[in-house]
């Protein structure tokens, strides 16, 4: 083989064969099941299996990023142009024309931080859901831990998120709004919560999509709706005001881990939200008090993380059950 086993005379080859036989005789048998172990420990076995393939995961992420804008002149710039245009639309139309920015100081930073985090979630789920189908050729031919396909989509979504993050941070610094406070710690926490829930849905939906192709279209529609279920283009203050005395509605609203993560992300990066600001033209000034963040936000974030990990466990178990039939359903 290659450099090591140059075909020589018959005797040498026989000993190569013999060495191979001896080595193989030592190896334990592995049950080749494509569905992975069924027990609870199967979750950790699958994680180990994925960890073994991390080099491949890395290559798949690169493949996804490279092939996306391969033949376009602007290339990666496109992954920035879309969110920037979104920002422009929300800033001009929702913010200025419809007046959503009236109670929201530094509306641009507010919206762009929301869009950045939402982009991570939406891209993870929508590309993740389609990932098993789009890699069907491979899945039918070789055994790999199939979880790496939704994970590779997640990887490329994280990359795009980081690019947007750089733009966001630059903008914040240029505007002189960099928040030097402990609130910054909310940023990684929000990222982790969104990532866990994004991966959970990506894993379970990618498996279901194999059996019911409508899932991927359903996901697109659901993401459109869910966009408005989190405080991305409107502020938490607006939510608090509109529920009036029915405060239990706020609890329901915060059951969505993404809404919670969104608030944490904004609390970390959107300095103006935690300060008293004065807005408007001279003569028509309004004083905007700091946002009343949910009282037990830290606890809720911890709970959302734990619940996410539990959900991820079940998502992987469902995936594991379903993947045995992937090759024949694709």
């Amino acid at each position, binding site marked *: *083989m*290659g*450099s090591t*086993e140059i*075909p020589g005379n*018959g005797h040498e*080859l*026989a000993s*190569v*064969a*013999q060495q*191979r*036989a001896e080595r*193989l*005789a030592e*190896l*334990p*048998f*592995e*049950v*080749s*099941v*494509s*569905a992975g172990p069924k027990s609870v420990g199967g979750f950790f076995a699958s994680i180990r299996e994925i960890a073994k393939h991390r*080099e*491949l995961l890395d*290559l*798949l992420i690169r*493949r996804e990023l*490279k*092939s996306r804008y*391969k*033949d376009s002149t602007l290339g990666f710039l496109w992954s920035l142009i879309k969110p920037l245009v979104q920002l422009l639309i929300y800033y001009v139309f929702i913010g200025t024309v419809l007046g959503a920015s009236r109670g929201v100081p530094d509306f641009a930073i507010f919206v762009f931080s929301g869009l950045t985090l939402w982009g991570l979630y939406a891209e993870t789920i929508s590309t993740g859901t389609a990932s098993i189908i789009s890699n069907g*050729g*491979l*899945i*039918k*031919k*070789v*055994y*790999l831990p199939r979880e790496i396909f939704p994970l590779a989509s997640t990887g490329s979504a994280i990359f795009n998120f980081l690019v947007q993050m750089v733009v966001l941070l630059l903008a914040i610094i240029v505007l002189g709004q960099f928040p030097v406070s402990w609130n910054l710690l909310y940023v990684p926490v929000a990222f982790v919560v969104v990532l866990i829930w994004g991966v959970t849905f990506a894993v379970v939906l990618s498996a279901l999509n194999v059996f*019911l*192709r*409508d899932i991927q279209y359903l996901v697109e529609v659901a993401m459109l709706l869910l966009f408005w279920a989190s405080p991305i283009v409107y502020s938490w203050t607006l939510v608090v005001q509109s529920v009036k005395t029915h405060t239990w509605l706020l609890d329901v609203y915060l059951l969505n881990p993404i809404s919670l993560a969104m608030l944490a992300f904004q609390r970390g990066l959107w300095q103006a939200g935690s300060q008293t600001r004065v807005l408007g033209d001279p003569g028509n000034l309004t004083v905007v008090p700091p946002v009343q963040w949910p009282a037990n936000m830290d606890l809720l974030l911890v709970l959302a993380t734990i619940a996410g990990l539990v959900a991820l466990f079940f998502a992987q178990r469902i995936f594991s059950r379903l993947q*045995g*039939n992937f*090759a*024949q359903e694709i």
Partner: protein
Amino acid sequence: MTVSDVTASGTANRGGAQLPVVVRAENVSKRFVIRKEKSLKERIVNFGRSQKHKDDFWALRDVNFEITAGTTLGLVGANGSGKSTLLKVLGGIIEPNDGFVERRGRLAALLELGAGFHPDLTGRENVYLNSSILGLSRKQTDEYFQSIVDFSEIEAFIDTQVKFYSSGMYVRLAFAIAVHVDPDILLVDEVLAVGDEPFQEKCMAKIKEFQQEGRTIILVSHSASQVEDLCDRVLVLSHGNVVFDGGATDGIAALRESFDR
């Protein structure tokens, strides 16, 4: 080599040397359910009649065998007899409904027309990707890269996107990668009849070299001459059952017989 030669310790006696068993299939059964509708609309419209829209058949029924190291096994049978399904079960791609397959050693499958290739990536990038899919580390691929390119004889196009490759070039590269993975067990599904004649000869030479190196090859083929030429054991499948297990020449005769049934 038949199953009865195999001793309890998982080794078999051939030519005086103890050869270990590398693949063991026990009571492997696979049932396919064919649903005719795929979309939600179709399912709702056909709800209740759904059972009528299901068709199932056994692609494999209680298949038992063991393969010792160094064997070249041919899986033959009429179209739809279950040979490719069996190969997929052996490769862990499809899970059997019943029974199990055990194996040991590194397994590689010759991917049909470079299934792992991404058309937008260059040949070089695809070599790394495909090697990784087949289980090579990055370092090993670096080591074998020149040898892979030399074997495929497409050095001039290695930095071209593979979507511009001819199908022959595609297969050359895919084959070159698969043979460099250093497999203990190689699964081959009808892909040897590719490329031009010199390349086919090169492939055959490589397969023979593999045999001498004691690698186990499991081959699905419709070409009787190829099976007779390469295999030292043949399994004939018919409607999901193993109807013959033995030497290549007798195997081909049994195959012809199974067509008539």
